C-alpha cells in the first residue's frame, strides 16, 4: 500500500511539472499581459519598468526556472492583476467551487441512481423510455444554454430563485458554506442542478446498463429462488454489484465537475475558482492560471486515490489482492 502511494505521488509530481511547463509556455505565447494591465498612454520607459517589476523582462526559460524555485518553496507567484499571492486567491475561491461540485454530485447520485434502477428494471415501460429520452437531452444540451434557460424560467418568469451570486454563507471549520442558510440554498440550487445535468444522465445510463446486466446474472435468479423479496434483491444484490462501476465513474467525474464548473460559474456569476480562471485568462494573469491548473491537477490526483480506496472497499475480490500484494 505504501509503495503504491509513493508511486502515485511520484507520478503526480511528474504530471504537475510537465503541466506547469506547458501552461507557462502557452500563456506566454498568447501575448504580453503588460499591454492589458498598463495605462494605454504610458510611455516605453513605463512599460519596461512594469515588465521588470513583474519579472517579464527576463527570457522565458529563466522566468520558468525562477517560478519553479519559488514554487518548490511554496510560493506560486503573485497575481499580475490583484497583486496578491496567486495561490491564496485560488484557495479563497475554492470552497465555493467545491461546494457547488459536491452539491451537483449529490443531485446526480440522488436522482440518477433511482431513475436508472427504475429504467433498468422496467426497460419497456413508458416511464423508462421517458427517463432515457430525457437523459439524452441531458447529455446533448449545452450547459450554458440550459443555465440561461433555467434563469429565464425560475428567475425572470417565475421569480422563484435568484439568478446569480452565492447568497449568505456560514462558517464551518473555517470555510464559508452556503447550504446551511435558506438564502444560500436558494442560490446554490440552480447552478448545482445545471452543473449536475450531464452527470445525472451519465449516472442514469450507467445504473440502467448495470441493472440490466445484473438481472441476467445467475446470482439474481438464485436470490429469487431463495424466495427473497424483490426489494432486497434489487436493493442489496443488484445495487451492491452495480455500485462498483458507478462509484469509479462518479469519482473520476468529480474532477470534471470542478473543471466544468467554469461554464456554470460564469453563467450564474458563482464566485468560484472557475470564474476566477476565466477572468485571469482574459487578463493573461499567468501566475493565477498556472496556480489554478496545478490545484486542479492535484485535486484530480487526490480524487483518483480516493476512488481506488473506495473501489477496494466495495469489491472484496480487489481487497484481497491488495492484501496479498
Amino acid at each position: 500500500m505504501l509503495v503504491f502511494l509513493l508511486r502515485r505521488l511520484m507520478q503526480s509530481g511528474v504530471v504537475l511539472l510537465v503541466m506547469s511547463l506547458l501552461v507557462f509556455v502557452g500563456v506566454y505565447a498568447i501575448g504580453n499581459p503588460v499591454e492589458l494591465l498598463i495605462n494605454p498612454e504610458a510611455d516605453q520607459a513605463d512599460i519596461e519598468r512594469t515588465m521588470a517589476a513583474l519579472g517579464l523582462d527576463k527570457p522565458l526559460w529563466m522566468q520558468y526556472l525562477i517560478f519553479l524555485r519559488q514554487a518548490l518553496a511554496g510560493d506560486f507567484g503573485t497575481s499580475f492583476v490583484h497583486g496578491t499571492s496567486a495561490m491564496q486567491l485560488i484557495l479563497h475561491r475554492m470552497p465555493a467551487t467545491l461546494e457547488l461540485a459536491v452539491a451537483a454530485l449529490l443531485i446526480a447520485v440522488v436522482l440518477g441512481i433511482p431513475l436508472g434502477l427504475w429504467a433498468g428494471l422496467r426497460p419497456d415501460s413508458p416511464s423508462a423510455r421517458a427517463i432515457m429520452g430525457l437523459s439524452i437531452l441531458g447529455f446533448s444540451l449545452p450547459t450554458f444554454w440550459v443555465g440561461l434557460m433555467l434563469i429565464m424560467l425560475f428567475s425572470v418568469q417565475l421569480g422563484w430563485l435568484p439568478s446569480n451570486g452565492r447568497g449568505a454563507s456560514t462558517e464551518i471549520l473555517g470555510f464559508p458554506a452556503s447550504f446551511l442558510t435558506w438564502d444560500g440554498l436558494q442560490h446554490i440550487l440552480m447552478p448545482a442542478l445545471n452543473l449536475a445535468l450531464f452527470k445525472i444522465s451519465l449516472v442514469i445510463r450507467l445504473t440502467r446498463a448495470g441493472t440490466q446486466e445484473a438481472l441476467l446474472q445467475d446470482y439474481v435468479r438464485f436470490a429469487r429462488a431463495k424466495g427473497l423479496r424483490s426489494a432486497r434483491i434489487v436493493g442489496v444484490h443488484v445495487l451492491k454489484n452495480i455500485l462498483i462501476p458507478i462509484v469509479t465513474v462518479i469519482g473520476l467525474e468529480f474532477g470534471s465537475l470542478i473543471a466544468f464548473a467554469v461554464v456554470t460559474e460564469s453563467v450564474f456569476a458563482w464566485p468560484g475558482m472557475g470564474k476566477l480562471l476565466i477572468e485571469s485568462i482574459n487578463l493573461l494573469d499567468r501566475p493565477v492560471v498556472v496556480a489554478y491548473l496545478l490545484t486542479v491537477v492535484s485535486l484530480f490526483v487526490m480524487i483518483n486515490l480516493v476512488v481506488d480506496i473506495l473501489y477496494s472497499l466495495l469489491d472484496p475480490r480487489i481487497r484481497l489482492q491488495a492484501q496479498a500484494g
Partner: protein
Amino acid sequence: MSMQQPILDVRNLQTHFVTSKGVAKAVDDVSFSLQAGEILGLVGESGCGKSMTGFSILGLVDAPGRIVGGQLIFKGQDLLGMEAEHLRRVRGNQIAMIFQDPMMTLNPVLRIDTQMIETVQAHQQISRAAAYDRALEVLGDVGIASPAERLRSYPHQFSGGMRQRVAIAIALLNRPDLIIADEPTTALDVTIQSQILSLVQTLCRERQTSLIWITHDLSVVAGLADRVAVMYAGKIVESGTVESTLKHPLHPYTQGLLGAIPALHERGRPLHLIPGNTPSLVNLPAGCAFSDRCPQVHAACAVNPAVVEVDDAGAPHSVRCWLIKSQMDGAAP
C-alpha cells in the same frame, strides 16, 4: 408408495418462448409426479427443456418465456394460480433450487453469512442470531470445516466444490420438501462430483426430501435416482424406474443415449453416436421430434406419438414412440 398423495404433480406443463423467429416450445406437455422422499432424474441433452422444466416449477421463467398451460400441484395447491407473494413464500422455503454453475450463483460482493441469513429471514420471523445459528448448523451438515470462519468469507475465497456445498446448504436452510437440482455437478471435477452426489443423496434420504436431479449424465442418474424421465425437444419421451428404464430402454433416443456412453470393453472401436444435432425448438420436425435422427423412423412417425404405458415386470414405464405402440398392438390381439 403410489397410494400416497404425491408431493408434486406436474400435469401437461407447457412453457413457451415467443421470439421473432417463432414460438419455441421449451417445455411441451410435460407430466410427472413425485412422492415424498423420491428422487427423480430428469435427463436430456442441452436445450431439451429440462432446466426450463425446473425453472417453471419455481415460477422463475424469464421473459420472453411464459408458462402457457398445464398445472403444477405442490402439496395440494396449484403453484400456477398462486399470487406472487404466496409463491415467494414457497420458493426457497418449501421448494429450493440448486443451480448449475457454483461460480455464478453466489453473489460475489456479499459475505456467505449475509447470503444465508437473508434466506432464513425471508421465510421465518426469527432474530439474526438464530438465523446465524441455523446457517452454522447447515454449513456443518454439508461438510464444511470450521463453518464459523467460513461464514465470514466471500464466495471467491471458496473452491468450486465448496461453493456448491454452500449453495446446497442454502437450499437446505429452511428444510424444504422438494429440492430441484439443475446439473449441480456438471461444472465440477469427477471426484468432487461424487462427493456432492453422495452428500445430496444422504441428506435427502435422511430428511425425506424429494429431489429432482436435472442432468445430461445417465451414469449420475443410475447411481442416485429412483425414477428417471428422459426429455427430448421439450417432451418426456420415456420414463420409469431407473432399473427398468436403463436396463430395458424402449425409446430409440434413450437407447442412443445409453449406447453413446463409452465402455471399456469397446476400446478402440468407433464410438456410438446419435446422428444429427438437437433440433431447434422453433423448427421441429412434424410429428415425432426425434424422427429425423431416429434409426428406426417409419411412416407412422409423421404424426406425434401418444404416451404408451408399458408394464415391465410390475414396474411402471411409459414411452412416447410408435414402435412400442405397434409392438403392443401387435402383441395384444
